[in-house]
């Protein structure tokens, strides 16, 4: 490398020296010749002759010196740059095509890389797994793990070197007067060991710190330590107040620590009472606590799964609920942690990747066509140069340098476009995807971009080089001289490319159409309640002031009462969960008198505890009976309201009102039964596209109290002013409580559709670009065909052909290409539709409307593209042509 640099630095000296040396030689030789009587001119001529071609000698000298390849490359680079500058229209089109196609690909690649490809930031992250209990026949696909699971499994599953549980949560942190609500994670002592990323300073939690009496310790994230403790090196042992309790700092995590998508600033022990760890609580996960484990080196996922299955089977032998769990299809699944995190979004991301790759292919094919046309236009020059002795290697390397220069410049522009694209997808919600917060362009990403550009350059060069090499010097010159048509093969190639482009664009368009239709169908689904003019916010009733359900109820009643008196507020209510909150909150109910039929398993349904005017605030419809009221909680009457799905399942023939049920999976004493007093309309609980109708039961808040409550407010004013009313009222009652996550129900519904809307939107952008590209491509190829056959057309016009005939001839070429592309596209769209089924909602894989619409759009764009060249062909005047030729 150094010697190459030395050679390059010394190059100007070298050239001058070589020139002087050769001149010296010629002059010396000429002088000797003159001395023997040769005249000066003749002597110089002979001296030059004997040396051979001066340029050849110089070239060989450079080659001998080792600067040859570089010189050659620099020369070719200059030549390529000159050629590109000479055709600004082509160069701009090519660069824009590359920038857009590479930019789109880089954007999606950044997303895929961050979410699907990059391993989790832990040592040997591939060995991390997660486990969850599933009861598919009861309608509960995923129920997390229980504390009991943890104590029963840890240390007893040979395939795991470490196993732990965690629970995400929030906490009010800080001294009174300056508190803030922070994301926290409660973890079992072995959590950091399982991940392989312990605290940078201090220690992990101990087993002794997992009871409510002894868990007053905390581990800080690096960010929290720097921000709140000023990176104090002696932070261990200092105090931090969380939810009113003082905790001692025992450790600080390293700066790079990041667990999945969590933004937790603090880590607390996951405490439990002895009774929480009993076998009776084995199935009480509720999808709140999650379990992770690390496979031992050499152990496989299958081994872990079979060991878990064996342990479950052994434990269920003594379990009184075993029969019911078996009926519910209970199993514990062991799955890779990373794959599990991204499982839901993976098909959509892969679909988008397929979409951008199609776009890149269209762009590449387009470029290849434009390059081929360019090469055809230069075929005479190339043929002459080959006839004059340009080597094959030279012809190939020249093409390679030119296309690579083009794609590298396009790649640089693509990087800029990609940075913009990453901002765009972040705005479209990519940063809220699992592991999506770390989508950003970095050096590695830019390297991938440039590498891709170089590969693309080489791929584009291949057919052009092939075309140039096939030029027989003689035939190339002759066919040009005679003004004949271009080689059949290259024309077929060009046409093939146009067909491929149209087919790919068709598939892209049809696929986007399916996504759009699916989005439209999803948006058309009614959520089951009147979602306009309603806002909901979340309040955590923490601290010493709310030790009991009664205290929570008292707060809820005061708040709804206060809100009810505010201007613009119609109804206000409280529930421990609301639809579209993202929390599931399912549990079992046992209906009095319902006997499980053969093959029927116990069902889990959504369970809510409501206070105030919750139903009216949310805009539920009343089907039968009455809504629950505040009085039901206050005077403690055991009543409940069920939704239509629930009523239809258990009492298909009769009215549900008056029937009785128990909370939980077992019937209790008669006095604990709840009487159904009303039936409300079913609502979409988790999302509009949620087809499962598990049913819901609404209890008075006092019987299903939780510290985390949602407040729903319906008003006659704008949601923004309702939000400030809600904040103000809550602060009036308890200034220490914060209302979080205030959003209108419409916004919540819209947000639940983001995984459908954003791909459809991106697909739309890709399709738009694709249409533009095929228009450019078709236009380019046909214009070239017209330009090339000008003489033939001129002669035919001179011989009496009418302009319409000429126009029809070119249009028919275009139509044939279009038809072929459409047929291929239809086949592609069929395959794409089949592949997309999993991400579609109530849309068949082959919607005739979509296919016909795509065909119409493609046809319209291609026809516009070929109209102009065809008309130009029809207007060719024979006089001009003949004048041109001579």
């Amino acid at each position, binding site marked *: 490398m150094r010697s190459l640099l030395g050679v390059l630095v010394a190059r100007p000296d070298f050239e001058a*020296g070589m020139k002087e040396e*050769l001149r*010296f030689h010629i002059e010396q030789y000429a002088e000797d010749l003159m001395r023997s009587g040769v005249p000066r001119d003749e002597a110089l001529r002979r001296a030059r002759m004997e040396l051979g071609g001066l340029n050849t*000698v110089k070239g060989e000298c450079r080659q001998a*010196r080792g600067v040859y390849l570089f010189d050659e490359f620099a020369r070719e680079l200059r030549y390529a740059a000159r050629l590109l500058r000479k055709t600004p229209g082509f160069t701009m089109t090519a660069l824009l095509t590359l920038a857009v196609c590479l930019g789109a690909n880089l954007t999606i690649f950044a997303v895929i890389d961050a979410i699907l490809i990059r391993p989790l930031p832990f040592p040997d992250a591939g060995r991390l797994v997660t486990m969850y209990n599933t009861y598919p026949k009861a309608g509960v696909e995923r129920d997390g793990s229980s504390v009991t699971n943890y104590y029963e499994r840890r240390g007893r599953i040979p395939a795991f070197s470490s196993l732990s549980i965690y629970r995400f949560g929030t906490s009010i942190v800080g001294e009174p007067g300056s508190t803030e609500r922070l994301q926290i994670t409660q973890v079992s002592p072995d959590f950091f060991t399982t991940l392989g990323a312990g605290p940078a300073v201090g220690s992990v939690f101990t087993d002794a710190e997992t009871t409510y009496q002894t868990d007053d310790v905390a581990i800080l994230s690096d960010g929290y330590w720097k921000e709140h403790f000023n990176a104090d090196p002696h932070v261990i042992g200092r105090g931090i107040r969380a939810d009113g309790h003082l905790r001692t700092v025992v450790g600080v995590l390293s700066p790079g620590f990041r667990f999945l998508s969590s933004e937790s600033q603090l880590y607390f022990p996951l405490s439990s009472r002895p009774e929480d760890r009993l076998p009776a609580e084995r199935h009480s996960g509720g999808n709140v606590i999650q379990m992770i484990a690390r496979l031992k080196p050499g152990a496989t996922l299958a081994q872990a799964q079979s060991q878990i299955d064996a342990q479950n089977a052994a434990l269920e032998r003594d379990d009184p609920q075993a029969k019911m769990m078996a009926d519910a299809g209970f199993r514990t699944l062991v799955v890779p942690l990373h794959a599990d995190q991204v499982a839901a979004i993976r098909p959509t991301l892969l679909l988008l990747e397929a979409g951008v790759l199609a776009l890149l292919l269209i762009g590449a094919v387009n470029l290849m066509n434009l390059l081929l046309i360019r090469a055809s236009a230069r075929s005479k020059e190339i043929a002459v140069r080959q006839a004059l002795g340009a080597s094959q290697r030279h012809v190939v390397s020249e093409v390679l340098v030119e296309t690579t220069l083009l794609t590298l410049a396009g790649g640089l522009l693509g990087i800029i476009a990609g940075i913009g694209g990453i901002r765009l997808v972040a705005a479209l919600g990519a940063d809220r995807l699992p592991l999506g917060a770390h989508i950003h362009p970095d050096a590695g990403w830019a390297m991938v971009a440039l590498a891709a550009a170089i590969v693309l350059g080489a791929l584009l060069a291949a057919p052009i080089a092939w075309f140039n090499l096939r030029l027989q010097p003689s035939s190339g010159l002759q066919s040009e001289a005679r003004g004949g048509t271009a080689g059949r093969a290259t024309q077929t190639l060009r046409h093939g490319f146009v067909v491929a482009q149209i087919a790919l664009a068709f598939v892209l368009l049809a696929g986007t159409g399916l996504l759009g239709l699916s989005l439209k169908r999803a948006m058309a689904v009614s959520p089951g309640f009147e979602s306009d003019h309603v806002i909901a916010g979340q309040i955590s009733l923490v601290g010493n002031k709310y030790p009991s359900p009664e205290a929570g109820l008292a707060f809820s009643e005061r708040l709804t009462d206060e809100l009810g008196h505010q201007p613009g507020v119609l109804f206000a209510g409280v529930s421990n969960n609301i639809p579209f909150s993202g929390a599931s909150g399912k549990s079992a109910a046992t209906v009095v008198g319902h006997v499980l039929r053969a093959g029927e398993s116990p069902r889990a349904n959504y369970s809510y505890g409501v206070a105030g005017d919750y139903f009216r605030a949310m805009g539920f419809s009343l089907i039968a009976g009455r809504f629950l009221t505040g009085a039901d909680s206050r005077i403690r009457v055991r009543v409940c309201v069920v939704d239509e799905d629930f009523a239809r399942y258990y009492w298909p023939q009769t009215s549900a009102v008056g029937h009785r049920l128990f909370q939980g999976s077992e019937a209790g004493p008669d006095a604990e039964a709840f009487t159904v007093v009303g039936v409300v309309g079913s609502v979409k609980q988790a999302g509009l596209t949620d087809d499962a109708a598990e049913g819901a039961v609404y209890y008075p808040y006092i019987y299903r109290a939780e510290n985390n409550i949602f407040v729903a407010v319906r008003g006659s004013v704008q949601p923004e002013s309702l939000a400030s009313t809600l904040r103000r009222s809550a602060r009036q009652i308890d200034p220490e409580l914060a209302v979080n996550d205030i959003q209108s129900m419409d916004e919540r519904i819209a947000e639940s559709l983001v995984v459908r809307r954003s791909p459809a939107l991106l697909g739309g952008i890709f399709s738009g670009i694709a249409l533009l590209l095929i228009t450019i491509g078709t236009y380019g190829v046909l214009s070239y065909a017209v330009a090339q056959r000008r003489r033939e057309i001129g002669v035919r016009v001179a011989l009496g052909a009418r302009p319409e005939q000429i126009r029809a001839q070119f249009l028919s070429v275009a139509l044939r290409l279009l038809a072929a592309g459409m047929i291929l596209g239809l086949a592609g769209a069929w395959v794409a539709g089949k592949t997309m089924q999993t991400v579609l909602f109530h849309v068949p894989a082959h919607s005739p409307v979509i296919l016909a619409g795509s065909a119409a759009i493609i046809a319209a764009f291609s026809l516009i593209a070929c109209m102009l060249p065809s008309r130009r062909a029809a207007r060719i005047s024979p006089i001009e042509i003949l004048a041109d030729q001579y």
Partner: protein
Amino acid sequence: MGKTAALLPGTLDMLILKAVSLKPLHGYGVLLRIRQISGDALKIPQGSLYPALYRLEHQGLIDANWGQSENNRRAKYYTLTASGRRRLREETVGWNRLVTAIAAAMNTRSEEV
């Protein structure tokens, strides 16, 4: 012209090294010297001389320095380097062995077989 012999492939480098080993020479001088020491029998194709010189210089077998020619003009003079001297020795030994062997082979008579 009947006396001149075509240069055997691969021998030009060796001849240049030999010529330069006697006295530092410029390119044209190398040409004349080879003609002189071969008794005008070897004709060097002028076009291959300079690429060969540059190659040998690149390989570090000869060194080039600008100096004054006999008629006071600036000219590039080539001298043998230490590794060039070593190479020349090796080539000379190898060449002599080859010549001896070929001569022996070519002088063989049928009764000696």
